[in-house]
């Protein structure tokens, strides 16, 4: 069972969890990384740390900052220069990134591990506004991939990114409580789950998040699951409706809470575009 929603602790994440965390000082990240990796090793996962620098520098950094027990365990941690996955500079290519994560996950299974666990401080990959859209799309694809494959990821961002952090946090199944009022996550059956409160306070953020959602090439339709929605106002519903109208595959909404359905019906969305209020 994946961990979904706001979380107050970074402990207990399973082999398919995708979550983000935010730190001010690198020293705040290290204990979390130690715990995440130790837990991964205990679960029989291949554990990989992504960072800037050569493999040697990364090994040295890990040796200094994290303590996962015996030397043998520490040596089991793979280090991957961040460019190997995300490319060197410029906006990332989301599809390419996911291909690389998929290959690495498959390799871990082939090598006898139960899956792959990764963590990276990705702040420098999203610092420039021009990089953010592609990276957010990448987070959404990673979210979808990890929901169906044994890849668990802890994506670290630094506080100094400011409000920009929320646009990435909302695309993880789990995020620290209070960071974002809503989340877009992947259900294990391929649906896109929506969670939390969608109202005026996060309308711009939701519009931006929706732009980062794309059906997979083999999706014949895109299903939004609203069972974890506490509230959704007319603006957010209209945003979804507009998304449905321009989406290349039919869009279906399921498990819409009664109060949201009430708003949708008053707006007359039953008759608009490809938003279907069936399966309610």
């Amino acid at each position, binding site marked *: 069972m994946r961990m979904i929603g706001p979380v107050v602790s970074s402990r207990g994440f399973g082999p398919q969890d995708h979550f983000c965390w935010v730190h001010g000082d690198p020293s705040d990240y290290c204990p979390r990384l130690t715990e995440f990796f130790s837990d991964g090793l205990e679960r029989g996962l291949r554990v990989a740390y992504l960072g800037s620098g050569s493999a040697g520098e990364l090994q040295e950094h890990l040796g200094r900052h994290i303590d996962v027990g015996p030397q043998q365990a520490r040596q089991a941690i793979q280090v991957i220069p961040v460019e190997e996955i995300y490319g060197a500079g410029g906006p990332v290519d989301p599809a390419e990134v996911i291909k690389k994560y998929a290959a690495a996950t498959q390799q871990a299974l082939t090598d006898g591990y139960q899956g792959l666990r990764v963590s990276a401080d990705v702040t420098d990959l999203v610092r420039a506004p021009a990089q953010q859209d592609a990276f957010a799309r990448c987070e959404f694809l990673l979210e979808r991939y990890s929901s169906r494959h044994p890849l668990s990821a802890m994506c670290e961002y630094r506080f100094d990114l400011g409000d920009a952090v929320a646009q990435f946090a909302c695309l993880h199944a789990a995020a620290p409580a209070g960071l974002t009022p809503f989340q877009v996550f992947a259900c294990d059956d391929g649906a896109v789950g929506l969670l939390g409160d969608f109202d005026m306070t996060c309308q711009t953020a939701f519009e931006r998040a929706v732009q980062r959602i794309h059906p997979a090439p083999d999706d014949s339709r895109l299903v939004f699951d609203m069972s974890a929605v506490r509230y959704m106002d*007319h603006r957010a519903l209209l945003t979804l409706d507009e998304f449905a109208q321009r989406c290349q595959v039919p869009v279906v909404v399921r498990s819409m809470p009664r109060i949201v359905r009430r*708003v949708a019906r*008053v707006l007359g969305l039953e008759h608009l575009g490809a938003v279907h209020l069936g399966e309610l």
Partner: protein
Amino acid sequence: MRTGAARGHAGHFHEAGFYGSDAEFRALVVPFVEEGIAAGEPVIIGYDDRKNALVRSWLTDPSPVTFLADKSVYAAPTRAIAAYRRLFEFHAAMGAGQIRITGEVPHPGNGGSFEGWDRYEAAVNTVWEDFPVWGLCLYDTATASAAVLDAAERTHPRILAPSGARRLNGRFQDLSVFEALPYVPDPLETTRPVIELGDSSAAGARQALAQIGEGRVADTILEDLLIGVTEAVSNALLHGRGSVTVRIWAAPDRIVINVHDQGRGPADPLAGLVPASSSIPDAGLGLWLIHQLDINVALNHADDGFTVRLRGHTADG
């Protein structure tokens, strides 16, 4: 082509009539309906059951007439505007040269509340201008209060007398200058609220309301109040001034909410009555949505700011 007194008129031909007896009611309504039937025009009638039955009995052949049995048309002014508009669209698409409607809006004299219906009567001079509609609104002088009759007079450009005499109404106020009836405070509003939230967010207001409202009103009414308070707070934050204050009062079977800001509120007299206001489209849709719900909505423009009042009652559900 239009017939009768509305011949040559473009848009909504809006007329009021005042009667003090069934005989006067008959004298006002029957010629209007019979003339429409004879001209092959669609005629729509929306009175209470007793008056609908009376009209039916007075007509030579009532079969071409549409009697609105569904009282929900008059559940709220905004819904009535939308429901009639759908009917007009249908008849216009069918090629009707004129559509005649006659009915009586709710007021205490016929068992309803007149709150908001003065704005409705003023608004329909404008919002149906794209249809060849002849609306004859009849008011019972024996049961309607002086305030209701006053508002009725000020909202109709033409008056029809039971004698059949027609005149232009000198007291008519165009929508742009129409003075709505004064805001009538709910008795609960003069008491101390259960909660007062300063600088409230929509989510904070929803949370407080959900806790206070649970078990006091039907779930569906509470949901409508939650939707309403969300839209009102959002509008206040987006378009109002100063801090937003939410006050909630609770009686055993009803809830009253004020969402107040220090701004002047929407200047558009159609705000809330039609989906998009000309000046602030986004706020227009939120206010319109609030007015579509199964709750009572009042807008209060006062010296200290603008307040949206929402009221929900168990019996409403």
